């Protein structure tokens, strides 16, 4: 685990990052002038998945590193953020296209993070995807199962439930996460519908 934390994102994503890194085809996250229109809950720091996962192509499991090996995906520790943001001050990504106001705004968000780290006060993220206490959702089983079945890399399976987070400026819940939704998928994939797989 220590090893993974110490490596830069590209090292982890390996080949994939190389193969898709043609600069022209790269997704560029939009400039957001009015955050009030965005769906999903407002987070204490305006962390943009579309910038990190979309534009910068950081694999999901760089931050949510335990998703493929544990039942809980975990949320990255502040150290993970600061690992990059010690150097990356924000406001210089391609997608901004030189918009100085936007760049200043993004730098301000990075500054919030740096302050939190300095004051050792982690931000309280608002939970977007929550299941009731009586449901078990082992992330690693789903990631393994979906990636095997669909023949894709583990990071590509997240979207099945979480939606296209890579292009979400602010993360919102796209699936109902209700039992009917779970069961529907289980039946489509002919996996068990036994109650005690999720409820115990």
């Amino acid at each position, binding site marked *: 685990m220590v090893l993974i934390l110490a490596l830069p994102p590209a090292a982890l994503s390996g080949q994939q990052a190389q193969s898709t890194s043609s600069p022209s085809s790269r997704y560029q996250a939009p400039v957001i002038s009015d955050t009030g229109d965005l769906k999903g809950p407002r987070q204490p720091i305006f962390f943009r998945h579309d910038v990190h996962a979309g534009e910068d192509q950081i694999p999901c499991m760089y931050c949510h590193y335990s998703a493929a090996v544990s039942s809980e995906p975990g949320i990255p520790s502040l150290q993970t953020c600061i690992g990059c943001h010690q150097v990356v001050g924000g406001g210089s990504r391609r997608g901004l296209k030189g918009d100085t106001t936007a760049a200043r705004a993004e730098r301000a968000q990075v500054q919030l993070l740096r302050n939190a780290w300095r004051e050792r006060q982690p931000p309280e993220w608002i939970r977007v995807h929550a299941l009731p206490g009586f449901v078990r959702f082992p992330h690693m089983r789903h990631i393994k199962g979906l990636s095997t079945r669909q023949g894709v890399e583990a990071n590509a399976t997240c979207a099945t439930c979480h939606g296209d987070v890579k292009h979400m400026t602010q993360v919102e819940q796209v699936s109902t996460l209700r*039992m009917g939704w779970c069961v529907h998928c289980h039946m489509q994939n002919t996996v068990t519908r036994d109650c005690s797989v999720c409820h115990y």
Partner: protein
Amino acid sequence: MAETPPPTTPTRVTYDYVTRTIARTLSTPSRGYFLLLGAAVALLAIGIVTLLYLLRYGLGLAGYSHPVYWAVFITCFVFWVGIAHSGTLISAILFLFRSGWRTAVYRTAEAMTVFAVMTAGLFPLIHIGRQWYFYWLIPYPNERGLWPNFKSPLIWDEFAIGTYFTVSTVFLIMGLIPDIAAVRDLATGWRKKLYALTSIGWTGSNEQWRHYSRGYLYLAALATPLVLSVHSVVSWDFAMALVPGWHATIFAPYFVAGAIYSGCGMVITLLTPIRTLFGLEEIITVKHFENLAKLCLLTGSIVGYAYVCEYFMAWYSGNPTERAAFWYRAFGPYWWASWTMIICNGFLPLLLWVKKIRTNITALFVISIFVNIGMWFERYVIIVVSLAGEPFTKWANAVYNPTWADWGIMAGSFGWFFMWFLLFVKNFPAVSISEVKEVLPPPRSKPSKVHV
């Protein structure tokens, strides 16, 4: 008003007399009526408050104690379902048998049935642990794609009780329609409007009578197996389980007989004051009571026979757990409940062999009260004592005692029942007008020997 009454009939009891006597029961209520109604509502209030407590804090407020997981609530449930049985029996089965005497008592019995089922139906909702999820027992399409388990006797129960409630309600309403029309034609003011609406255009024309009589006959024919099935299904709640003292093939007929027995008892209990208060002595005669008493005697004897059978089979089977269960029942810590039940249901009805007792309404009233008590205890014994004496594992040395919450809900159920019953008898004819007339000789211009 009949001009030349037939000699065989008392002069006073004519069609008109019947209509007016029965319609008089709907006159402005007395203070006593309001006192009774107030008492019923007060009891109901106790029940509601208790229920709120149960909802807030949990079923732990009741006396439940491992392994007695069903107790007073289910006892009351079976008690009220049992009460509900004589109504349809009297109105449907005796109708099919063309028993003339039923006409004077069947309306009361049928109303009692409907309200008793309404009461009984509350208990399964109250007694479950998460009352707010009661609708999960209903097969409705839902997002989760889940259905109830039709193998569970509780689902059978739900269907049986639901059907019984529906059918007995429509049966009661069907019977009421011609009578409401009769009352409508006497009433004035808002009541006339109410009855005009509820009699849905009844005139007594030959077309109406033609379909009505046929339909009523089919309803009776459907209700008859239903009556037998409902209490059989209720008995299977127990007989399908493997608890010694429950798991017996005799349960269905035993419960049906017990139900009719308790129902007849309750009919006597209810009719006695109604008859006196509303001055219906000439419509509901001692003969009616005697017939009810005979029915009690018959069903009571069947119940007594079932008791003997149960004990005999427990001994004769040689099954040690069965024997232990019945030994516990008779001589265990709940012996008093068992013997109350045996005396009230096994021995008390034997008094009805004596014609003097059978025709003494005061005596019958007292006996009927004991019948009710005895039948309540029968369910208590079957449910609580069988569970408490569970002989499979010695873990089961139960210390069950009901608490205020048990009694509160039970009181509430009596309040609920009597509230509806009292409201009913003051607003709708408590004795069938048209059917009582049917057993009277029709008015003729010249005396005739035509059969009644």
